[in-house]
């Protein structure tokens, strides 16, 4: 276990408001005494281990870290991390986290949610957290199924899925969380895979560095109700040919032999071509216009036989909580500290002797 305190220089102007740990931390510091109760083999275990392994690297005072979740298998997550935490109600974690983050800039606030929690019942809150750019980090465990309610299709399940509630196949068209987030002009959007510890850690690191809302979609295997949903991206034999690793400033090349690439077609859209093509696109996660990131998000196993993982977009604009607190400071500078009795006596008053 590596023990570090912020050696990688994970910092930003908002993270700097959170007190640092007094001494080096280990994964154990972030492990609660609660017995973990996911199904054996569930992808959530790997994600938990990666997050617990990453948190010491952040180097924040443990008591200033908060995990908030909604309802679902993934939402049990806060019970297992020895920080402050709240297991709230279905879909509402982003709203609750917003109130906490806005009123406590000295906290590092994380939301743990799933595809049903964030994209179905809580879709509205997710959208608004993303567009406001509240300083919370949202980890969206996408297993493309409802686990806790025992196997109904979710808003990310593929059309035609046979589940308990859709014996003749699901009819809804699924949506793509990354496209959705980019449509809301989220300032940080990334994707990773539960089992790829190194990659997930790198994405968590980038998310933590980002001042504002970070949405991290994590493909998570539900081995009970939707086993193997992401096998193409996990199986050693297929992985490299179907995974596009996004690295800012680098050409979008992939494949076992690095011979395939993303090229810009004549109509401006992105397509898969040869790595030798002069039209190979260089990834720019910092572009203010989300068009490039959105075009990348449209590449999927179904549409292009390749799925991008990594950071799609990472742009720095003022965070909502920053702006709220700036107004409080500005009002105080302008009008002085509030004086209750002066407030009550404001307006037209008169005296009776």
């Amino acid at each position, binding site marked *: 276990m590596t023990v570090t305190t912020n050696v990688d220089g994970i910092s930003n102007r908002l993270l700097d408001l959170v007190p640092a740990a007094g001494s080096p931390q280990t994964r154990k510091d972030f492990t609660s005494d609660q017995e973990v109760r996911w199904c054996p083999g569930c992808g959530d275990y790997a994600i938990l281990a990666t997050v617990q392994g990453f948190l010491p690297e952040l180097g924040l*005072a443990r008591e200033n870290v908060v995990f908030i979740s909604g309802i679902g298998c993934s939402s049990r997550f806060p019970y297992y991390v*020895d920080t402050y935490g*709240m297991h709230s109600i279905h879909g509402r974690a982003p709203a609750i986290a917003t109130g906490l983050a*806005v009123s406590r800039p000295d906290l590092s606030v994380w939301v743990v949610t799933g595809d049903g929690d964030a994209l179905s019942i809580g879709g*509205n809150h997710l959208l608004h957290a993303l567009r406001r750019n509240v300083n919370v980090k949202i980890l969206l465990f996408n297993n493309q199924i409802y686990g806790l309610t025992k196997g109904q299709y979710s808003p990310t399940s593929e059309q035609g899925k046979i589940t308990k509630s859709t014996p003749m196949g699901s009819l809804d068209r699924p949506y793509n969380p990354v496209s959705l987030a980019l449509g809301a002009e989220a300032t940080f959007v990334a994707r990773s895979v539960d089992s790829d510890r190194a990659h997930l850690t790198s994405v968590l690191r980038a998310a933590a560095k980002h001042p504002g809302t970070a949405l991290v979609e994590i493909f998570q295997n539900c081995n009970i109700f939707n086993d193997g949903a992401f096998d193409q991206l996990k199986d050693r034999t297929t992985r490299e040919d179907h995974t596009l690793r996004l690295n800012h400033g680098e050409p979008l090349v992939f494949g076992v032999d690095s011979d395939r690439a993303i090229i810009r077609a004549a109509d401006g859209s992105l397509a898969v071509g040869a790595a030798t093509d002069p039209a190979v696109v260089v990834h720019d996660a910092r572009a203010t216009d989300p068009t490039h990131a959105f075009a990348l998000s449209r590449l999927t196993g179904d549409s292009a036989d390749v799925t991008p993982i990594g950071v799609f977009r990472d742009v720095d604009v003022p965070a909502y909580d920053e702006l709220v607190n700036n107004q409080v400071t500005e009002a105080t500078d302008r009008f002085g500290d*509030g004086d*209750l009795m002066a407030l*009550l006596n404001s307006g037209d008053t008169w005296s009776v002797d």
Partner: protein
Amino acid sequence: MSEQVREKETRQVDRVVIRFAGDSGDGMQLTGERFTSETASFGNDLSTLPDFPAEIRAPAGTPAGVSGFQLHYANHDILTPGDAPNVLVAMNPAALKANLKDLPRGADLVVNTDAFTGGNLKKAGYATDPLSDGTVDDFHVHRVPLTSMTIKAVNAAEGTDGLNKKESERAKNMFALGLMSWLYHRPTEGTVTFINRKFGKLPAVAAANIAAFRAGYNYGETTESFSVTYEVAPARMAPGTYRNISGNVALSYGLVAAAELTGLPLFLGSYPITPASDILHELSKHKNFNVRTFQAEDEIAGVGSALGAAFGGALGVTTTSGPGVALKTETLGLAVSLELPLLLVDIQRGGPSTGLPTKTEQSDLSMAVLGRNGEAPLPVVAARSPSDCFHAAIEAARLATKYRTPVILLSDGYLANGSEPWLLPSRESLPDIKVTFATEHNHTAADGSTEFWPYLRDPETLARPWAVPGTPGLEHRIGGLEKADGQGTISYDPANHDKMVRLRRAKIDGIASDIEPLEIEDPSGEAKVLVLGWGSTYGPIAAGCRRVRARGMKVAQAHLRHLNPFPANTGDVLRAYDRVLIPEMNLGQLLTLIRARYLVDAIGYNQVRGLPFKAAELEGVLEDVINQ
């Protein structure tokens, strides 16, 4: 101009009820508010009742689009905005149509004759002109060409160049205000100052409004239509400093005060909804009090963000009306389970569903007390008058923070928009409700080590410790799943659940001993009938009681601030009377709670017309019950 020599007869009266009515775009609310300010600064006691349509610009000229403002003021303390107007100002035929039924015979009626055109009569639903077909024969009619005289006055005034006819005409409400200010001897300086301030950036508009206001005032003096003016002497009120205040502003100030008194920063998470939005507007002006206001994406996010802020140690508040309470219900349940302080302010309006957004009702009481899944008790507090909203907010915050519980504070549309003079409290008179957070471990494990148990209760209040993030050593996880008594970890144990359900109930029930006992007002000490009320019916009930007492009958009055739990002496009070009458602006929600809890065969009197009870109406009801 108020110093002018008066040539007309002045009559002294004890009280006046005046109603302004016009199109929603005619500025009637502003006119009413200005008249109220003039009256307040003169030292009368007063009570107001704005009444406006839900649409911002309802179809012009139709009775549905009429906006009204009623003001009752007197030389003595008064309790209601008045039953029937002594004078009605009708700016157009629709306003006449919508309000004439409330006007008693012989009352003064001021009509803007310019608006009584064929088209307007038709829109109002008049087949013939009511001013000439006998409709208004029973009243003292003053026919005033208000629009044309306004335009003339504006054109003649200096500094109004560049205004077109429509813009000039818009000042006609100030003409009406000027005329009424003359008729009732109101001071006028405040209004001139107000106009200059309001239209500071539009000097021509300011000049037009002042010209119209003065012209209206002078018109009274010169026209032969008015032979008498009225004077109401200032009321004898308790010494101190006063201001006029509406319920929503008082409630906002109460929240700011509660934040200061608890020592917590105020966080308001809210979604705009009539008639609660003004609290969001008001609080957003006071960020220098370390107030954060968050206009959320929906009602659920409003309460969710407030709960999140409360988890972080803020005074978390959400403001809404009935439909919003329905949406916030699940989060209230979570707050009950988390045992965190949270304030939900419900400015009740007519229901069900969207109902009557701008009309008042008391029909959310059952929902407030009982409307959650599972056994989810929480304290319910209600304000009784506009200025009382200030104190009710502080009391709600006291209970929320002391008992670590969500609290519902009930106000309603009548209190929210109505106003009254408020004797400003001193800083020292406000309660000390300072909050302390947990900072230490509170439990010793078997091996002698210490730890933090988030659900270990204070033996007296049964409240759990409030440990906020950032406190080292007290890291803990809480959630909506049932928790083990004390330790607070997830527990599905049947006996533990039974215990926790009872503990949460006992905690709320225990508040009964920490609140003021129910007070009885019975000057005779011999009454056999008790009227029990809650919320905004306080004024009309008290006024009704005064009326029957003045006629030699005996009646006792008690009014509940706390609807859950009830004060400890409630049962004894109820059982001390032969008959208990409970008037409510719903179909008997308190009545049901009282009957179920105390097995007292109370009698309900109920109406849901969207308007407060009238004193005369309750007088009649009381008389019937007393003589039963």
